[in-house]
């Protein structure tokens, strides 16, 4: 349905260097209007720098980008008219109350004071912040601050929203609230560029994902395609009675092929590219009287995808780049 719309973001060969470090080193992106597009990568991969160039906060050193049809350098003002940014540091004023923050943004976007107040009230109610509306934001919890931050981004509904690591540091309940809000926003027609270092977050929310490492896109596709590119999925089984594991091993090896036994004496994992064959294998187990506590049949997690694509896990990459001072520019620039 959205396929025939022009892309909301088209970036070609974006480059940004801080001193000798090329934080973004030739990023290409094409984001369909109305979609949630995930940019996935470890700390220091260049996600925030990319977002800042697209949101007109940083001028690219090379390459071009058009956001909603406008060039981010030459038509920066038109871009700002249509987008909103929720930065990595919560982009709200800690020294004001939640309500004052929202009214301020409303005024700056051209609402009259009465309209700005009404809109602030509506958002505070919707985001469960009414009770805290009169408190200074510096006294908010992380989850409240994030919700206020997102509310501030939609005081006037943007056509495109940049969300930079919206759930970093949140507890699971707050994280789910943020995810729900993102889904509602997409439902209302807003295109969302979501930067995240959480693989399950991209998997949950994004229609397409670009995996970014050391300033370049190393893989792009739907979550399913990315997983498929890594290879087959797996059937994971946990038995009620560990005594039955040799028997289960034998059956799964016959039905599916390679089986690995895990450290937990009740668990086994078999490679399984085909869901139908996996289902047959599970029924073969129960027909043979092997009692199953639970099983899952799935594609590899994005953690495994990242490992397969880069040869290292997200955490290792983060450590490696910290070692050679790679994330330094991004942190510096986040502070500025």
């Amino acid at each position, binding site marked *: 349905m959205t396929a025939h719309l022009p892309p909301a973001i088209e970036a070609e060969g974006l480059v940004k260097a801080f001193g000798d470090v090329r934080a973004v080193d030739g990023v290409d992106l094409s984001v369909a209007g109305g979609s949630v597009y995930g940019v996935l990568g470890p700390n220091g991969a260049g996600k925030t720098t990319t977002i*800042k160039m697209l*949101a*007109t*906060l940083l*001028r690219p050193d090379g390459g071009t980008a058009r956001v909603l049809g406008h060039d981010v350098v030459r038509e920066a*003002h038109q871009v*700002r*008219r249509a*987008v*909103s*940014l*929720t*930065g*990595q*540091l*919560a*982009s*709200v*004023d*800690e*020294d*004001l*109350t939640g309500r*004052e923050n929202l009214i*301020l*943004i409303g*005024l*700056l*976007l*051209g*609402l009259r004071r009465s*309209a700005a107040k009404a*809109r602030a009230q*509506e*958002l505070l*109610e*919707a*985001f*469960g912040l009414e009770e805290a509306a009169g408190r*200074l934001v510096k006294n908010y919890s992380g989850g409240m601050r994030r919700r206020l931050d997102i*509310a*501030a*981004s*939609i005081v*006037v*509904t943007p056509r495109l929203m940049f969300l930079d690591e919206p759930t970093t540091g949140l507890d699971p309940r707050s994280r789910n609230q943020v995810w*729900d*809000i993102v889904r*509602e*926003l997409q*439902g*209302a*027609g*807003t295109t969302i560029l979501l930067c995240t270092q959480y693989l399950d977050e991209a998997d949950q929310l994004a229609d397409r994902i670009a995996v970014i490492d050391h300033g370049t896109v190393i893989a792009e596709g739907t979550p399913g395609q990315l997983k498929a590119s890594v290879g087959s999925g797996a059937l994971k089984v946990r038995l009620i009675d560990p005594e039955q594991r040799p028997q289960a091993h034998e059956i799964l090896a016959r039905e599916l092929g390679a089986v690995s036994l895990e450290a937990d004496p009740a668990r086994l994992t078999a490679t399984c590219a085909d869901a139908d064959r996996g289902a047959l294998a599970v029924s073969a187990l129960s027909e043979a009287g092997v009692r199953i506590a639970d099983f899952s049949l799935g594609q590899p997690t994005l953690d495994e995808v990242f490992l397969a694509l880069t040869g290292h896990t997200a955490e290792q990459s983060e450590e490696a780049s910290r070692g050679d001072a790679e994330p330094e520019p991004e942190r510096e620039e986040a*502070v*500025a």
Partner: protein
Amino acid sequence: MSTVTTSPDDAIRKAVASTPRPGPASPVASALAFGWRGMLKVKHVPEQLLDVTITPVMFVLMFTYLFGGAIAGSTGEYLQYILPGTLVMSVLFTTVYSGVALNTDLTRGVVDRIRSLPIWRPSPLVGALLGDSVRYLVAGTVIIVLGVILGFDPEAGIGGVIAALALVVVFAFGLSWVFTTLGLVMRSPNAVMNAGFMAIFPLTFLSNVFVEPSTLPGVLEWFVNVNPISLLSDASRGLMAGNAEASDILISLAVAAGLTAVFMPLTTRLYRSR
């Protein structure tokens, strides 16, 4: 309130539903909104007004009673001489805090949102300085009220006092652009504070705020006489006494305009690129 209750999801759905986009805020409206933001911060942390009230009071009391007798023969006469000068000093010292506040702002995430808004580019800065002008006004008023209590006699009456205060606040608005520039190039709020006072302190003391330039050695006297702060003090004294020289007032205003013309675009540029 209506009696219809909606689930949180419905409320969110309604809140995120597309709203018509209003026309852009005018430069004046956005600058005023930022000025309002500055006022709110004072409202939430009124203690920050201490620096603009206590310090000037200390200066007036200290200079009048400690040095007054030695410098002018009597404290009453000296008060008459230095009160317009301390008005200038207190307000100009306050301008350093504009740079400190801007630097503090840059360490916060909110600057990213501000810079991504479709607003007149200098409006966050102009607005902040408009808000700060209220602080200048508070500092100036405290000085004048205290002076009158201690026996200062503004011969030109209330009109002259208001004119002097207005002139000093306008000059301070111009000068504060220098400190916002400093606020954008220095690394920390403390560095801005130190550098700012290192500049403004000697400049104020090497003026005619505290002493008659004719008592100074030659080179110093020359410097004091060309120091714009001396001209501003002369204008402020003249306005309060009813014998102001037009040239002092005009040059003070010209200096303020010149500082604004140079440092406002510079600050705006730096703010955009940082």
